[in-house]
């Protein structure tokens, strides 16, 4: 829930995006629920808007579902890996607390969500200009363009968030080598967990052949990596 105290202060929002390492390190060092609330709000709004733009092409209901699911994926990834991230940091040479590591990861997700939110009008505009999502549109250039745009924007948001996280970790640990190690470990576990959460939360863009739904039937019956392995095996079987 967004309380008045959790509404992001515009000046703090600018500081967050500009990645002033000393200020961000100070924020991570002094755990403040109000600031955590502000970062959660940025994630809810930024990723929510982007999610809405993503799902809108399929159906307005799909827009609403993805607007809920996308921020949820980010928040659950941060929460689910909070303990592991806090354990890995000191083991890799960065002595920070659970609260500090959680605040740092949440900050990077908030930055990525802010970038996503900023691009959501552009994606919405692209969708508005696109023909309705019918089965034959899947083989068209527009479908490819919109899918590729999502990949580029999400990759850009991820890179910006992680670049800021690296600066913050380097500031906290006073060593770039330690920051690199911790960032790599956090990235690995967050990607692993996040990709499965995203898999469970399908559909995101939606498919014209399938009905609009919050979760697909059998969302909990398989996993992302199993599917990748099956697809790879099928590809090589077909090749033979």
């Amino acid at each position, binding site marked *: 829930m967004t309380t008045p105290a959790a509404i992001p202060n515009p000046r703090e929002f600018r500081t967050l995006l500009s990645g002033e390492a000393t200020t961000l390190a100070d924020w991570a060092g002094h755990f403040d629920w109000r600031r955590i609330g502000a970062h959660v709000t940025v994630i809810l709004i930024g990723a929510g808007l982007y999610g809405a733009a993503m799902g809108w092409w399929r159906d307005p209901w799909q827009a609403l579902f993805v607007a809920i699911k996308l921020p949820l994926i980010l928040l659950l990834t941060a929460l689910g890996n909070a*303990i*592991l991230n806090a354990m890995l940091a000191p083991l890799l040479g960065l*002595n920070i607390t659970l609260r500090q590591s959680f605040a740092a990861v949440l900050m990077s997700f908030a930055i990525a969500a802010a970038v996503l939110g900023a691009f959501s009008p552009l994606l919405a505009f692209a969708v508005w200009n696109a023909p309705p999502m019918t089965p034959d549109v899947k083989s068209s250039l527009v479908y490819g363009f919109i899918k590729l745009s999502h990949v580029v924007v999400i990759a850009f948001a991820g890179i910006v968030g992680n670049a800021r996280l690296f600066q913050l970790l380097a500031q906290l640990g006073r060593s770039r080598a330690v920051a690199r190690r911790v960032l790599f470990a956090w990235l690995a576990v967050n990607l692993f*967990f996040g990709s499965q*959460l995203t*898999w469970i939360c399908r559909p995101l863009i939606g498919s014209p052949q399938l009905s609009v739904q919050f979760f697909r039937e059998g969302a909990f*019956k398989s*996993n992302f*990596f*199993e599917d990748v392995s099956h697809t790879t095996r099928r590809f090589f079987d077909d090749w033979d």
Partner: protein
Amino acid sequence: MPLPLGDDPADREQVLNPITAVEAILRQPRRVMYQLRQPGAGQLIGSMLFVTVLCSLVYGVIVGSFSGGTQWWAAPVKISVGLLISALICLPSLYIFGCLSGAQARLSEIFGMVVGLLMLTTILLIGFAPVAWLFSQSTESIVWMGVLHLAFFAVATGFGLRFLDAAFSHSQARSPVGLRVWVIILVLVILQMSAALRPLLGTADDFLPTKKKFFLNHWGECIRDSERAGRYQSRD
């Protein structure tokens, strides 16, 4: 050359209870290594054992959640007991390897190091628990879950072995070869223990297996069964 234990005043801070033991092994492992050499290290070892059992039970519940039923309690019991028995089986060989390489460590200190290794491994497994739980609920493949748990165990054990290696380096051992060999033995014992206490994932009529199997054979059979099931499914 690492700074001798106790030279840093932070090393001499006492580890009084299980919570400080967890914090110390994650943030100041030298504190644990120093305390293990002091008289009355038994309390610290007891605390670490308590954390090890607790964390392995909790992770066991996550492992058991894949199949449910009797596995809710059988998997935690098997994992906890299996880890402790594996460590006890390997303890004498570590002590002998230590003595052969010139290490100046008493048996109680070596025991403390091994318990430290187990504690760090199991608390890291707790860190992986939310991820493991999510996958337990979203897949039906035993092979996949087995690979995932093995991967988590490998990462966690890697950090645990790093602690053991660091602790051993303070015991004036002339060569690390003995320790390296012992690490291989420990890993093999734990993997075989997982096969001896099967099933940890999946279900069976008996609590313990009636047929003895080498762990590689067991894995091979699991993979073949899973492939066969996959083929039947695709025919359906």
